[in-house]
């Protein structure tokens, strides 16, 4: 019988809160061969993080849930396209980022969906919506509205860095763009936010 040992190196084990028996490479390799338990462990590991990122990027719970669902189902169907299983985390964020960007673009392409910061408010459950009255506006409501005036690319990039805590290099790797582009997008987003929040801070 044939035995081959190719690699014998230690690696960082990134344990999950639900199934901590397996490292990320093992889970990805098994999931792409149809192991639904392994894929479930990946969902457990990434679903909340992805939902938080999408919520903050899109500002809408229903849209965020749809994007997370589409992202993880697409991941299941295209795991074979992931050449390096250890890069699953970056890959899944890229899928989600692309879907958020597409959705934001579609929103902006619909004139009725383009929102003016002065016409926005947030419902008690955190959902942002257009309302005619701006009475009782809070800084949070105005900030949410200002975020929606950013371009889709700026918004995704800014949220990844500012709210999800990724470094410029990590954002660049996630989005597949240069670090210089990340720096430029974040600078333009910050400038727009500061201008939009003038008088509110």
């Amino acid at each position, binding site marked *: *019988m044939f035995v081959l040992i190719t690699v014998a190196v230690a690696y960082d084990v990134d344990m999950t809160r639900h199934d901590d028996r397996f490292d990320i*490479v093992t889970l990805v390799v098994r999931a792409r*061969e149809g192991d*639904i338990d392994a894929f479930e462990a990946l969902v457990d590991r990434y679903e*909340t993080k992805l*939902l938080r990122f999408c919520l903050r990027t899109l500002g809408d719970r229903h849209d965020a849930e749809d994007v997370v669902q589409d992202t993880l189902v697409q991941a299941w169907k295209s795991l074979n396209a992931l050449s390096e299983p250890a890069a699953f985390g970056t890959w899944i964020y890229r899928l989600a980022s692309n879907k958020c960007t597409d959705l934001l673009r579609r929103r902006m392409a619909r004139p009725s969906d383009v929102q003016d910061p002065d016409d926005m408010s947030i419902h008690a459950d955190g959902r942002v919506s257009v309302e005619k009255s701006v009475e009782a506006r809070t800084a949070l409501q105005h*900030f949410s509205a200002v*975020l929606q005036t950013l371009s889709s690319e700026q918004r995704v990039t800014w949220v990844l860095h500012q709210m999800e805590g990724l470094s410029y290099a990590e954002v660049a790797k996630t989005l597949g763009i240069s670090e210089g582009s990340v720096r430029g997008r974040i600078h333009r987003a910050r*400038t727009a*936010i500061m201008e939009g929040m003038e008088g509110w801070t």
Partner: protein
Amino acid sequence: MDMNEHVSSGTEPDPTSSESHQETDDQLRGVIDEYMSTFQPEPEDTAGVRERILQLVRDDLYRGPSTHLQTEHGHPFAISTASVRSIVRNAVDSVDGIRARSVDVEPAGVPEGSAATVSLTVAMRAGISFASTADVIRRSVSAAILAELGIPAARIDINAEDVYVD
């Protein structure tokens, strides 16, 4: 223009620098923190999404490929490839210090499908003796295939591709 003013204009801070960003972030810290806590998913938010995702994945799995084998009496049968791999994975995982990764089971023997060849990649715990453990893995996999599928394993190739530390 005095020297100080000249020097100052020549070393104007980069507006994209982290120092410049820190200043603007500090001004907005309160509202950013409030926004982040507002858009923080609760466990009940993820439960429904998780179930929908897993249902779609299960539906997709049912449409997956099958492995075609034969009983010892020559009767052909097919079983989902994912199930065959699962049988082998469970047998490998039952060996102390070994975690199955990739599993491939191909029909073998004459007639084809009366036996199976198995190729595995595994991760092993640091300190495990591979040579002796490989024999344990083979025995475990052979027994599982015979018990669950009713056919012998003609060949079992094992590739230990990683080492883990508990």
